[in-house]
């Protein structure tokens, strides 16, 4: 009751502040909560002509349809294979890189090196996949030409099994440098007296990295790990979709690309929404799981 009185008084006195809040509130209601409300079509046989009110409620039909599809587990498996392997490779690398940057004695060289590592982040997914297509052309692509020049045996990039390494390596190129920033930020807050004390005690540079730098970025590491695990089901579908080809579709069809095709190419709106919802529910469960795990292990989580 007191809150309502306060709100009323505040709204009269600071009416212009409330006016300024309007655009943000309108945006969130329409474009964030609107689709959440629209998600109910996952439980309906949505008919675009009749609208939501005229569509029949069918419960979990679409979820069951998706999960009883023989290939649905293949899609889930593909999603997890791609995301877990990129987690394994792209999670530790930025940490190691950040520690290496931090240990560089010359600030000027360090800046240049960092700029080179950051740059690929600003190359669009479309262009990265385009570059991959050029480099991995079996006959005239640069990779096979280099291999041949060195006397090796050319790789067959059209094979389905070539997809994952190509995806992972290009992913590291795109993201490893940029992801170091968050750790570099944590490293700048290390108290320099710790280094001095360690040096006085005879610690080598490697020991300083091991005993000072790594413990000081542990909290950041656990947060990024939780977030990464929480995003396992949301692989970068934009890149996977562009990399799909007739020869690798058996390993590249993931839940979100399948959902896109079912919804926007075949027009099965309800079915596709159900798949999307299934995907985010799994994601959220993974996030909660990772968070609990981190609480148990390190005593801190994000939720």
């Amino acid at each position, binding site marked *: 009751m007191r809150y309502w009185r306060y709100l009323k008084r505040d709204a009269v006195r600071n009416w212009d502040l409330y006016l300024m809040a309007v655009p943000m509130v309108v945006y969130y209601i329409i474009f964030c909560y609107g*689709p959440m409300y629209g998600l109910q079509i996952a439980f309906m046989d949505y008919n675009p002509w009749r609208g939501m009110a005229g569509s029949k409620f069918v419960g979990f039909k679409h979820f069951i349809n998706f999960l009883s599809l023989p290939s649905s587990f293949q899609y889930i498996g593909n999603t997890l294979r791609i995301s877990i392997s990129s987690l394994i490779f792209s999670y530790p690398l930025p940490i190691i890189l950040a520690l290496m940057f931090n*240990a560089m004695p010359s600030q000027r060289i360090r800046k240049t090196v960092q700029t080179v590592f950051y740059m690929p982040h600003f*190359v669009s997914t479309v262009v990265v996949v385009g570059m991959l297509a050029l480099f991995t052309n079996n006959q005239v692509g640069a990779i096979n030409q*280099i291999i041949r020049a060195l006397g090796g045996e050319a790789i067959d990039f059209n094979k389905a099994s070539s997809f994952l390494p190509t995806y992972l390596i290009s992913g590291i190129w795109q993201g490893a440098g940029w992801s170091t920033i968050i750790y570099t930020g*944590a490293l700048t807050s290390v108290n320099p007296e710790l280094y001095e004390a360690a040096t006085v005690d005879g610690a080598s540079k490697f020991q300083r990295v091991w005993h000072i730098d790594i413990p000081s970025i542990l909290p950041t590491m656990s947060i990024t790990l939780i977030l990464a695990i929480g995003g396992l089901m949301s692989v970068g579908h934009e890149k996977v979709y562009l990399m799909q080809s007739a020869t690798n579709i058996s390993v590249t069809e993931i839940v979100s690309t399948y959902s896109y095709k079912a*919804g926007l190419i075949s027009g099965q709106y309800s079915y596709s929404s159900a798949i999307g919802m299934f995907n985010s529910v799994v994601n959220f469960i993974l996030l909660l799981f990772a968070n609990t795990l981190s609480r148990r292990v390190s005593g801190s989580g994000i939720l």
Partner: protein
Amino acid sequence: MDKMKKKSWIKQSKIQGDWRFDLINGLILLVLTLIFFYPMYLVFISAISSPSEVFAGRVLLLPTGSNYEGFKRVMENEALWRGYANTAVYTTIGTLINLVLTMTGAFVLSRKTFALRKPLNWMVLVTMFFGGGMIPTYLLVKDLKLLNTIGALVLPGAISTWNLIITRTFLTTSIPDELQDAAHIDGCNNIGFFIRIVLPNSTAIIAVIGLFYAVGHWLSYWNAMLYITKEEMYPLQLVLRDILLKAEVAMQSARTGENIENATAVVELLRISESVKYIVVVAGTLPLLIIFPFVEKHFVKGVMIGSVKG
């Protein structure tokens, strides 16, 4: 104090492992830097070299020959230039909308006496974990009659919750409450305070999130793929996708149009289309990469502000 400094310096020079550590660290980073730089360099030298040399695998370290034909073809490609122009428009308008909504929103959320502060903060935070997903958003955009309009590209993502929170953090820490009180006593209302005091003191954060938003608009293709079907409205990234990934469009049209039957002519066409792709990759990437070193510090700052409260 002075004595200690000296002591630590002596100790440091005594530690044998350190120069070795620096050397190995430096060498590994040098190699990695070259590896990371090479793909971009390779694309660049392949774009300016003659296509037959590139095809023969002789352009791996230095450019040879010239690629006048390829450049001419790219310059004549109207779709590419239209894509550039469209993206420029979408990026400018989109970023303006982003900035207005994010700055006003973050300002409101940063006011400690604002009675709706808590509920609105929750309204924002919930969207970081839950969303409607692709199809409901698509249907909404369709129902709002935004398909094939610029609105579909700039409205659905008008506020990035992440950027909003970064900005709110910045404003709560950098604009003291006393300033607001003082402004109030001087008869300045909230809007006046926002325009005359907050905005001029937030240029740092405006630069940061403005760049985040602008780069996001520049690089994105997925939304355009969902919402834009008219080719003359395609942003740069969709045009690039068509040139780079829709396989051999040029070849097919050439084949049907001119009915080429001998193999050498087909190889020649393939050669040209591949070399055009190299140029297109350079054309699609270069502007951003040239600007980037000058604005790098803003990006880094943005990520760091975000990580503090993230």
